[in-house]
């Protein structure tokens, strides 16, 4: 990447889109041009250094000269961010990290996107790219499974449908769609599509326990999976070695070698 990963970008909008969700649109020709699905940006949410570290946000959508981040209000950092007004500027570093591998050659394939909670954010960008790659001659099916605690936390269903993906929803309390975990939904789906199996792949983003189950399913059904790890980051640029994750090949940095990893690489026990 070029000489300047850090820039002051203008906030175009920062709107509440749900109970505690916000959609941030930022102007950056560079990030919109170079970002790929699964990558993230590091935003300095507070100008003073009481809240010292930057916060990572997955790139949610990319348009011409702009990009979006979808975030939920989780702590002091996002509380700061949600008060930022359009027209003001934010200090942003990005795009960072290794994203999903979405360059597919197979003519027929089934791609399953599994989103847990805020994990939908980067998968919308991925779904868009996957559907773009669809040509009339290629049979490409994109299935999106969205999991959340309850109905009001189901995000982006409409966006996925707009791209032509088929969408299934799971809620812990059964207030929408399947009652249970999104991983149960995935298990059911994999069992059904087991035979015959065109080239199938799983892409997932969400909380650790979900990703752990998906890794197990990926091994059981012998379907490759790429998972994006959510992690607190200190630097986000590979300098601090703080965001270590245990892999078969020793510790790797979530921010630099990740955040997307092949599922089979991750060692889940032992603090991994």
């Amino acid at each position, binding site marked *: 990447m070029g000489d300047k990963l850090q820039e002051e970008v203008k906030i175009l909008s920062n709107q509440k889109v749900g109970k505690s969700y916000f959609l941030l649109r930022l102007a950056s020709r560079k990030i919109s041009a170079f970002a790929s699905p699964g990558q993230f940006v590091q935003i300095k949410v507070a100008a003073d250094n009481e809240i*010292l570290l*930057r916060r990572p946000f997955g790139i949610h959508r990319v348009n011409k000269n702009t990009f979006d981040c979808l975030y939920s209000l989780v702590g002091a950092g996002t509380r700061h961010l949600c008060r930022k007004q359009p027209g003001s500027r934010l200090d942003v570093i990005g795009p960072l990290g290794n994203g999903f591998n979405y360059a597919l050659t197979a003519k027929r394939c089934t791609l399953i996107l599994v989103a847990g909670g805020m994990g939908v954010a980067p998968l919308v960008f991925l779904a868009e790219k996957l559907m773009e790659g669809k040509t009339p001659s290629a049979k490409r099916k994109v299935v999106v499974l969205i999991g959340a605690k309850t109905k009001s936390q189901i995000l982006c269903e409409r966006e996925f449908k707009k791209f032509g993906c088929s969408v299934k929803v799971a809620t812990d309390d059964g207030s929408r769609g399947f009652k249970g975990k999104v991983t149960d939904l995935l298990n059911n789906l994999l069992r059904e599509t087991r035979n015959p199996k065109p080239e199938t792949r799983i892409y997932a983003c969400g909380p650790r326990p979900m990703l752990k189950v998906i890794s197990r399913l990926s091994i059981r059904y012998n379907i490759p999976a790429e998972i994006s790890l959510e992690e*607190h980051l200190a630097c986000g*640029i590979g300098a601090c*070695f703080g*965001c270590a994750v245990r892999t078969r090949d020793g510790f790797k940095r979530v921010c*630099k070698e990740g955040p997307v990893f092949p599922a089979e690489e991750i060692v889940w026990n032992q603090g991994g």
Partner: protein
Amino acid sequence: MEPKISISLGRLKLKNPVMIASGTFGYAREFSDFFDLKKLGAIVTKTITLRARQGNLPPRTCETPAGMLNSVGLENPGIDAFIREKLPLLAKTGVPIIVSIASEAGWQEFVELARRLDKIKAVAALELNISCPNISRRSIVDSPQATKLLISQDSKATYDLVKTVRKATRKTLITKLSPNVTDIAEIAVAAEAAGSDAVSLINTLTGMSIDAQSRRSKVAAGIAGLSGPAVRPIAVRMVWEAYQKIKIPIIGMGGIIDDLSALEFLIAGATAVSVGTANFVYPRVTIEIIEGVRKYLRRNRIKDIKYLSGSLNL
């Protein structure tokens, strides 16, 4: 006239007094996307041990008010892989490379590391990390009475170690001190007496942060090292205390995040400054500090930065 900002640490000459603190810069390549590395005064590498270290279990860091805790645990590829894979790229920056070293077991390891690095031209100086709070303490100090201490928490152990390593290398030797002591000046005096060319202070302060819901420490190791602007007043005070007792140069660090905070250290008696945690937040900060210090000298008509060091008005 342009003020003179070059400084010396022992025989090592730096074109400016702004350095990178150990463990906060990856292996430098990570920062070449942000600025021209050539502009730095010096780079202190991540601490290297004889054997490769995996580092501690995650989570390794957490944010705290105006700072952060870390317990990375000196993850590094070991001296051989460092020399083979990391050092050539570091040397290519054209900036003096100061290799930080630590021992996992006894002094012999320090001596061996120093001997190995002594022969390498690309190594400008060595920094003895005898103050990392994140590795098991038991094996570090040989004396049985001192088993719970880091070397830098005992002036006798500091003296003996520096003296021993001094014999093993002709390179400029910097000793990095721990702030987790009663009297930092006493340890600094011991390092000076043993032949250290300079001292770095401070390493991180030990700290802890707890998640009330899970009642667990937010960092897996429990106790971790605190850094960032939160520690700065302590660091500045310690530089001032050490400055009054020693003659060798002090490299001041601890929460430097802009030119004004770097100037605090210089005025308190530091000859040079190192920037650590701020690199994580503002990758270009070192360059801005160099410019800021230069401007300050110009504005105040100070011809040479050496007249600023220790110029605190009492």
